[in-house]
């Protein structure tokens, strides 16, 4: 990998070319808030706009999302300017108006000095009460898990992740990767009596032969066996007892 030097907040760092600004900043202890970025998902990022930073290049300045802007030679990044803070605060105020019940957003907004919302707030406890429509869940499902059980449906403010026609999906394996990846905890995943409920569907869990804890949906085991050729007996025990 070609190494280049990039300036972030006045300090020069060595970085691998085409790495995103966010990664390079984090590797070097510079904090840039983000919500929709996940290093495992190439198509993620760019939608929540929380990680906007100033990019100075060839005498030109623009705001770019740190999570998908590739570092290049001669690039200077400023993560803490009046403009960056103003726009970041604006984005967080809008997110707070959208999901006033989200702890994560409340805390992130408070950290930027946004404590109240001057605009109409969306009602709490509605269908998408914590969802910021960042699409990380659908990207993880498609790219990491590889099943395309959910997709972003609709457009504008009503856009949300959903299974086709909001019906139990034929292909969902109940792995819950979407719920784990969600930055605001908006995806409901419930487990009771060895059954996991997610996306309108119940999944029977495999119990660990040692401790008896239900720990993985059968459908997920089927999927992994099919994809990797791994021996099914491997899943008899939970990770703690393997």
């Amino acid at each position, binding site marked *: 990998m070609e190494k280049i030097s990039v300036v972030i907040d006045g300090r020069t760092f060595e970085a691998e070319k085409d790495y995103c600004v966010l990664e390079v900043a984090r590797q070097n202890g510079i904090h840039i808030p983000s919500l929709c970025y996940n290093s495992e998902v190439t198509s993620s990022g760019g939608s929540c706009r929380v990680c906007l930073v100033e990019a100075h290049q060839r005498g030109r300045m623009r*705001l*770019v999302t740190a999570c998908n*802007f590739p570092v290049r030679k001669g690039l200077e990044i400023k993560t803490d300017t009046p403009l960056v803070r103003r726009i970041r605060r*604006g984005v967080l105020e809008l997110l707070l108006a959208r999901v006033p019940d989200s702890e994560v957003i409340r805390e992130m907004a408070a950290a930027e000095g946004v404590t109240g919302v001057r605009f109409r707030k969306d009602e709490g406890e509605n269908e998408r009460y914590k969802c910021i429509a960042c699409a990380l869940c659908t990207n993880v499902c498609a790219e990491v898990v590889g099943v395309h059980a959910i997709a972003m449906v609709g*457009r504008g*403010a009503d856009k949300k992740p959903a299974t086709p026609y909001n019906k139990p999906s034929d292909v969902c394996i109940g792995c819950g990767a979407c719920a784990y990846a969600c930055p605001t905890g908006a995806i409901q995943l419930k487990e009771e009596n060895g059954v996991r409920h997610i996306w309108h569907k119940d999944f029977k869990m495999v119990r660990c032969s040692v401790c008896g804890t239900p720990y993985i949906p059968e459908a997920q085991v089927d999927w992994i066996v099919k994809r990797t050729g791994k021996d099914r007996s491997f899943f008899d025990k939970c990770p703690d007892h393997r």
Partner: protein
Amino acid sequence: MGAINSIEELEAYRRELAAAAKPDLPTVLVCFGTGCQAHGSRRVAEAFMEAIKEQGLQVDVNIGFKTTGCHGYCENGPLVVLRPQDILYLKVRPEDVPEIVEESIKGGRIVERLVYRDKVTDEVVPHYSEIPFYKHQHRIALRHIGTIDPTSIDDYILVGGYAGLAKALTMKPEDIISEVERSGLRGRGGAGFPTGTKWRSCAAVESDVRYVMCNGDEGDPGAFMDRSIMEGDPHAVIEGMIIGAYAVGSHQGYIYVRDEYPLAVRNLTLALEAAREKGLLGENILGTGFSFDIKISRGGGAFVCGESSALMRSVEGNVGEPRAKYIRSVERGLYNKPTVLNNVETWANVPEIILKGAEWYASMGTEGSKGTKVFSLVGKVNNTGLVEVPMGISIRELVENIGGGVLGGKKFKAVQTGGPSGGCIPERLADLPIDFDSLTKAGSMMGSGGIIVMDEDTCMVDVAKYFTGFLVEESCGKCTPCRDGLPRMLDLLTEITEGRGREEHVAMLEELCDLLTWGALCGLGTSAANPVLSTIKYFREEYEAHIRDKKCPAGVCKALITYSIDPEACTGCRLCAKNCPQNCITGKRKEAHVIDTSKCIKCGVCKDVCKFDAVRIS
């Protein structure tokens, strides 16, 4: 005739067509554009065919008959042009046809009641090229529209079609790119990126595959120049794309057309088939060894799919959502391959530029915006429709000379340019030249070239609310500022227009605009602030009147107006009382009437029907 195997053969074929053509032959051109067809031009054409067939036996007049693309003067359709006399008949109905055949075709006389009559001077103008709407135009992109049959490739070849391609194929690809660069052509889709520069960047990227694309999505309400070109002169677009493909080294092209344009899809499909048959498209074009083909991709009509990166996602079969263009499409576009995407109008200009040269094209327009631009002129103006004029024409010239002035003699207030995310420019800046840079500087943009004329009865806060509402509906919802910011802007504008506006609302609007401009993901989001920003900038006093005085100066915002009857002007004719749906107008015959404002729903029917201008809005 089958495939044309060389450039020489194409020229020979053109001479053959020219020899067979009879330019003096009387020709009836019936517009088959979408607008005229909606007005019934198909039945008019049928009536002509019938009349000609019937009378052809009696009189020795041989009549050429054609159906053409849109002439742009759609509100006066169906349009019929008679050649060689160059007479334009407006609003022709099937029952008018026998008279036209008898009087004009056989008798050489003009049917006066069907020709253009100037609304101001009352002067009768029978000849197409003398009508003010056409006289001031300079047509390049629209050069053949209305004169050729878009379903006939021979028609196109006869008027010089594919000669640009023939010339291009004798040039080096590098020289074609230079020619386009020197012409100064900038993307007609709205952003105005230099076309030659785009091609050069794409050609420079190392890749086994390159794509050439045409953006025919055209989502702006009221704009229909791309539709008109695709319907009326599809070969011009195809020829432009083949030239572009040869220049950048592409072998596969796509035309993305919104599915709401069925006639465009049909005519493009026919044109592609005809071009393939003639050896102008496909393998070994004109025997030069260069191969290139084009597919049509139909879009579902989402506004955002006109945005280049969303369009490419859509062609790939994914949901059309824009991406951050930190890596440009010329490097990684369709299927991650280098891609040149140009708009319909841009492609239609290319063959003429190659044929007539960069200097010819660059001699028109302004320093930074060369050539001509097609505008769709609509709103409160006498002549509406598609017009092509040199860049740099002033707003006033466009509205007054071509548009024939503001409708009903009202006061000209502003123009809105650039589509829903464009801005409003006030009358006092009407001498501004229309080009990419001056429109942007004024807080608006070129966009698709939509120009909406507004008169004194337009409330600018209401205008901002209207366009913001459109954008709320069409936001794809991918990024926070656009998805959640626009609805909040609409909230504030609604509060203001309904009389609940507070002093701080204007500042809050400006703040949200700032957030969109800096923070939105794609070009549509970053420009979505324009309607609000430009109206605040030029018409702040109207916002203040709504907020501070709870008044709508233009008398539009229902919550802020009351209707009353001027007792001096009222004649007591009772017309308003008869038409009032609330029955809240009372008064004896021949005595001044009164409106009971507690029951009035402000529908405005009384004002519309009053013949004495006695109904007042305050």
